[in-house]
């Protein structure tokens, strides 16, 4: 689960990590009022940032530096009345309903700081770099020596000596070191206590020296947090931060029925049991020249009702011109799927070609059910193996000529 930057900032601030002052707003007037407050408080620069779950905001014009309330009004109006389109958004872009208005700060140097799960070693890892403010993937690819990784002991978590080691290694100086160490330890505690899968501060900056801070101040400017979906049951407060407006409506409905569904751009709907087989079914469609419209795993113990809902979701997608059902019955019994197909024929109706490939537990009973319901399923074709099924559905939806 992802949260917005303004929510991550709040979590950081609560964990005593210094962040520039600011607030989340949902209207142009509120953005103007917040800007006015910040300017009145002595700040000379204010940054307005759209709060969406996609990168590329700066280039798309959805991060703006402003110096007056007039500029703030203009920026907020633009962001709240246009959809943001970037390489990371769907082609139609994302609607922006929330803005972060924060004090702009002068930056002396920028760092990268994150904690994430190192799958290969089964540990959590602190990652730091002096190359802050840019995409860390790029740094990792071009100059991997500039990335420092420190594994966390699974039972003890991040220890102060490790944080000090990393702080010195990335080049914090003088009084910055202690501030950076505090931030790292707070970040590690936040990671642990929320069952996060990623907590990232990028950039973590140092301000230019001033009278009260001869070595500058260490501040978190932007943050990205992801949480383990499997652990949300014990973090109601985190679960409540989810912004459902950005989740596809069909994906949400699927989730309610215990189905795992991801919408894609193609025209062949797939209904499969098991995540690996579901991915492979998409792959084999592509291999035979088709384009999958979705990933859908009905799971091992889906009821007839849930499977019927799966058909409803897929047939409700206007792009879908054919459906491939691929079931290898294990716990999932083939006759349950067959009954759901007949059910769906009655309640939703199949106007598009339907190719069914069943194998495994109770397959004979399932084939009989489908044979008996032939009248109600005029568009159905039975395939005996995976390759035949993929060929059939691809040729059924192929545009003639």
């Amino acid at each position, binding site marked *: 689960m992802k949260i917005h930057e303004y929510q991550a900032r709040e979590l950081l601030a609560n964990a005593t990590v210094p962040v520039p002052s600011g607030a989340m707003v949902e209207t142009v007037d509120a953005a103007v009022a917040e800007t006015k407050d910040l300017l009145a408080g002595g700040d000379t620069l204010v940054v307005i940032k759209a709060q969406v779950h996609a990168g590329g905001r700066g280039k798309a014009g959805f991060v703006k530096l402003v110096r007056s309330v007039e500029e703030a009004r203009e920026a907020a109006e633009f962001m709240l009345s246009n959809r943001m389109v970037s390489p990371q958004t769907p082609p139609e872009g994302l609607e922006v309903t929330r803005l972060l208005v924060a004090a702009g700060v002068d930056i002396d140097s920028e760092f990268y700081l994150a904690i994430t799960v190192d799958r290969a070693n089964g540990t959590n890892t602190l990652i730091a770099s002096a190359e802050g403010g840019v995409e860390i993937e790029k740094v990792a690819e071009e100059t991997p020596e500039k990335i420092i990784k420190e594994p966390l002991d699974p039972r003890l978590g991040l220890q102060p000596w490790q944080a000090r080691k990393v702080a010195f290694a990335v080049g914090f100086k003088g009084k910055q070191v202690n501030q950076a160490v505090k931030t790292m330890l707070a970040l590690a505690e936040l990671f642990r206590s929320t*069952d996060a899968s990623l907590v990232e501060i990028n950039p973590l900056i140092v301000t230019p020296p001033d009278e009260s801070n001869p070595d500058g101040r260490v501040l978190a400017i932007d943050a990205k947090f992801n949480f383990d979906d499997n652990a949300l049951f014990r973090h109601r407060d985190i679960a409540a931060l989810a912004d459902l407006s950005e989740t596809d409506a069909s994906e949400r409905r699927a989730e309610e029925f215990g189905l795992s569904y991801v919408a894609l751009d193609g025209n062949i709907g797939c209904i499969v049991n098991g995540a690996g087989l579901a*991915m492979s079914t998409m792959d084999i469609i592509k291999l035979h020249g088709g384009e999958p419209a979705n990933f859908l795993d009905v799971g091992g113990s889906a009821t007839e009702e849930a499977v019927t809902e799966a058909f409803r979701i897929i047939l409700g997608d206007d792009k879908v011109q054919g459906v491939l059902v691929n079931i290898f019955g294990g716990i999932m019994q083939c006759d349950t799927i067959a009954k759901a197909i007949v059910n769906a024929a009655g309640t939703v109706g199949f106007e598009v070609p339907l190719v069914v490939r069943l194998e495994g*537990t109770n397959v004979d009973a399932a084939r009989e059910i489908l044979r008996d319901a032939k009248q109600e399923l005029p568009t159905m074709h039975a395939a005996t193996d*995976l390759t035949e099924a993929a060929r059939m559905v691809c040729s059924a939806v192929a545009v003639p000529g």
Partner: protein
Amino acid sequence: MSILIDGNTKVICQGITGASGAFHTKGCLDYGTRMVGGTTPGKGGQKDVNGLPIFDTVADAVEGTGANATMIFVPPPFAGDAILEAAAAGIEVICAITEGIPTQDMIRVRAALTDFPNAHLIGPNCPGVITPGKRVAGEGAQATFQGGCKIGIMPGYIHTAREDASTGRAIGVISRSGTLTYEAVWQCSERGIGQTTCVGIGGDPVKGLNFIELLGMFDQDPDTDGVIMIGEIGGSDEADAAEWIQGNMTKPVAAFIAGRTAPPGKRMGHAGAIIGGADDTADAKMTRLRECGILVAESPADLGSSMSAALDLAEATASTS
């Protein structure tokens, strides 16, 4: 021969009175697994629907039955604890079927398991492990088997013991996916290739036994002629395994990677099936495997034929050298 389990393995089910635990305990019994009991805290002293003894703790179950393997169906919030309880009781093969265990629980469990070097964790979020038994009667789904051991939720009848395999060959299967494993097993059985042991290592990012450890076990097992490894998007396990195979494996390996059409950044069902960067796409993994000399199936329909080809090639190379 086989790895990890055989017809003598004594198995308990943790969570035996839950709906899934009860259903699959019956399935394992029907396959011929030596199911010897189960645990449900508070129901110790009772019998389950199959007449198996129920114990309050795994330690009691081990003492009462001599169990050396367990199948865990405990719900996600408590499953990590169940794994550790099994390890502490001296169980050697811990098969965690449960899906949805928090990753941080698994990180702590893995660290704690280093105190129990004899305990092998399979999963979580996996179909389990099976060493097929010999078919004694019946056909297809009605067939009955003897001398095998099925710990998990896979349909037993699709598997073939070496004695029943028309080619006389038998392979090992290691897979991150459940139903895709069945597909591979089915295709091999149809071609007369038997299986020594099939291990579902699970779809979670942090798990127990991984490709390399199991490849090593299969390489040591005299009855295993080759291995199919089935991976998917996310993580570096397949790439690490590819390098290990190139440097160490003496037997042929055929591989398949699911998720070539998966979009980046989206979780595809499994918690671990998510493309994080350029290295963990299906294409990157397939390339790495091929660079290490491993036969990679393009299509999931070619799992059996690829394994067959890899076995033929190894045989031909052995006879000419």
